[in-house]
């Protein structure tokens, strides 16, 4: 189909043009004469409207349709609803989704899990919908904003009579004045009302707050940034959401980062009986009042990637972490998540004691993790030969460790010194009293050395025992995409303000043989527009009632 898109004013318009780009005359004959004009996009053709579309045009046209965009949004909303039926997998750590949903919700839960709805927001179809909305945002905007920009930046001043009389604000009346003179006089009152005024002989165009037309497109830019940030927060290094244990008093590396976090002290407080109501006391529940991890965050400044060197740490932040009050440092957040109050042995300070005389040769510090190899106590030299974290004897009667956990630590020393054979004697030491008895430390040592022990290791008091009193389980989060999310939302807000609080107002007028024809257009607040036109006309000495300016499109 070949359309004649040439206007009577001589301007060659593009296919799909509704109002002549030059003079504004309606081009589509099916528009009944007398009806209000369709002013969207100033009547210019959208970019996608063209003859003989090929495959690329068809894809482009699909996404450029606002109708498609609305359907996409509705489908996405419905899809998002499915994710709210049962809890999502991402809410949990350490659980097995394949049995969880079935156990909790029965067959429905099983179906829910099988359909992949237990991770709705990470499923391919949901992401695809978001990508399509993004495509629609970009293409819709490009398709409209560029032609609109062109149309608005090269507006003709003299418009077709029909263009003016079919606006929503119209005035027609005899003024009995010379056209050019009237137009020149009209400039000042319009400028006073903050219009930019352009004149051309007997015609005038006044316009203000055109920038508000860009509001929707600014919103789209913001939404695109928002969507990109959401879709790409999974990029390496941008996002982390992990849970780790931090034993008290030890700077522990946060895996995958150069940060170390030390749980200086963990406290949990419970409500006392006095703080509870009588009713509540009956329930016998114990309610925690406070979980707090006094945390210090260190950044590794040297030797971080080299396992043969000790990392050099520099304190960068310090914060008492409480529930919903995380430690925050440069996008890294550490939230309180769980705790464990089981004490763990960190180190002991046993003294070497002469079994006969009871003489003590002094104490040394024995760490459970990475202990020193050699110790001196008086005239004696102790060499650490082996270490068992979870001591036991296997079928062959050999000492073994059952696990890596310090359940029953045992240390095998070689002791050299006075009254002992020159090559020394082996001595097995259990720091925990309970293990000493369970494994019969003395009997083992008698066997190892072949004689009664001359010296023995003994912890003399609780002050010589160092415990890790508790461990705090923290949720470490890094979300470097968040600033972009906020930026996107900020731009959206800016666009909303642009579009909501200002209106693009235009007034065209022409004087033909002493007869004034005025047309006015705005996007909203027609009441204000009519009022402004009426006050302008009054200033020009033309009496016009505000209401009479309203063109309802009912004229024949």
């Amino acid at each position, binding site marked *: 189909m070949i359309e004649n898109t040439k206007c009577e004013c001589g301007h060659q318009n593009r296919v799909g043009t509704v109002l002549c780009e030059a003079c504004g005359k309606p081009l589509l004959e099916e528009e009944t004469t007398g009806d209000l004009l369709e002013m969207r996009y100033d009547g210019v053709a959208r970019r996608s409207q063209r003859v003989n579309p090929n495959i*690329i045009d068809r894809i*482009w046209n699909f996404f450029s349709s606002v109708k498609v965009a609305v359907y996409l949004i509705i489908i996405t909303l419905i899809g998002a609803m499915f994710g709210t039926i049962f809890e999502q997998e991402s809410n949990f750590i350490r659980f097995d989704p394949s049995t969880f949903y079935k156990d909790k919700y029965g067959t429905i839960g099983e179906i829910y899990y099988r359909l992949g709805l237990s991770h709705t927001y990470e499923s391919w179809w949901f992401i695809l919908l978001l990508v399509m909305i993004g*495509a629609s945002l970009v293409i819709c905007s490009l398709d409209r904003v560029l032609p609109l920009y062109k149309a608005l930046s090269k507006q003709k001043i003299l418009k077709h009579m029909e263009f003016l009389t079919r606006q929503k604000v119209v005035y027609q009346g005899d003024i009995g004045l010379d056209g050019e003179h009237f137009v020149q006089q009209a400039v000042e009152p319009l400028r006073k009302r903050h219009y930019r005024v352009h004149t051309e002989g007997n015609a005038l165009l006044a316009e203000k707050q055109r920038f508000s037309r860009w509001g929707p497109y600014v919103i789209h830019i913001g939404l695109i940034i928002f969507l990109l940030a959401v879709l790409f927060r*999974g990029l390496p290094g941008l996002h982390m959401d992990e849970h780790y244990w931090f034993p008290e008093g030890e700077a522990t590396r946060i895996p995958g980062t150069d940060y170390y976090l030390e749980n200086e002290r963990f406290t949990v407080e419970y409500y006392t009986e006095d703080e509870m109501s009588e009713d509540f006391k009956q329930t016998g529940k114990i309610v925690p009042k406070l979980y707090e991890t006094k945390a210090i965050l260190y950044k590794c400044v040297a030797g971080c990637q*080299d396992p043969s060197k000790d990392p050099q740490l520099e304190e960068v932040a310090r914060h008492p972490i409480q529930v919903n009050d995380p430690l925050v440092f440069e996008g890294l957040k550490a939230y309180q998540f769980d705790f464990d109050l089981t004490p763990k042995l960190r180190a002991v300070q046993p003294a070497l004691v002469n079994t006969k005389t009871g003489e003590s040769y002094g104490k040394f510090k024995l760490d459970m993790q990475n202990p020193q190899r050699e110790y001196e106590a008086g005239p004696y030299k102790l060499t650490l030969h082996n270490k068992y974290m979870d001591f036991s004897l296997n079928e062959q009667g050999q000492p073994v*460790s059952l696990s890596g956990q310090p359940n029953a630590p045992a240390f095998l020393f070689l002791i050299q010194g006075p009254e002992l054979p020159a090559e020394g004697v082996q001595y097995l030491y259990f720091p925990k009293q309970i293990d000493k008895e369970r494994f019969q430390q003395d009997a083992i040592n008698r066997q190892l050395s072949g004689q009664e022990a001359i010296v023995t290791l003994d912890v003399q008091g609780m002050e010589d025992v160092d415990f890790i009193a508790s461990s705090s389980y923290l949720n470490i989060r890094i979300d470097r995409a968040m600033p972009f999310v906020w930026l996107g939302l900020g731009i959206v807000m800016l666009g909303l303000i642009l579009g909501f609080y200002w209106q693009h107002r235009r007034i065209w007028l022409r004087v033909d043989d002493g007869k004034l024809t005025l047309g006015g257009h705005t996007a909203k607040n027609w009441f204000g527009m009519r009022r402004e036109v009426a006050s302008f006309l009054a200033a020009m000495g033309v009496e016009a009632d505000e209401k009479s300016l309203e063109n309802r499109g009912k004229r024949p």
Partner: protein
Amino acid sequence: MGKARRPIQIVVLLLIVVLGGYAIGTAVFGGEAQKPVQGGTPPAFKLLGLDGEVHSLKDYKDQVVVLNFWATWCVYCVKEMPALQAQWEKWRDQGVVVLGINTGEDPVTVESFVRQTGVSFPILYDSDNTVTRDYGIVPMPTTFFVGRNGKISSIHQGELNLDTLDDQIRQLVNP
């Protein structure tokens, strides 16, 4: 003016396909670090060895690498040590390296174990279990066989005997 727009359209659509494809791809295959699988690339590491040197996976590029995750308290790990030692001695001249990654024990324990068992292939300390976590080790021992192309050719969970080990290595040496 229609002609000039075509390249813009193509660029915009291509960008959408590439970015969208990436977003959907990471959603489907998981953007977060995942357990290495057969045919995949083994996660890089840099660990201190028993010999005091720092060993990283890329030091053994173009070699057949047998990565064995073990601990002294793991009975089956201890049992398979002689087999690993024997195969290492057999194949080491043909560009095969066995790396024993100890999971979180300290030097006293590891050294005394090595002294007792006479193991001489490189033993590395994964003192904070980072690499063990990266490799998603659940049962021990777990052994990864990495071919000369740098890809994981197989993952073996549980004790290895001399013959399976020999088979696996032979396949990688003479593909």
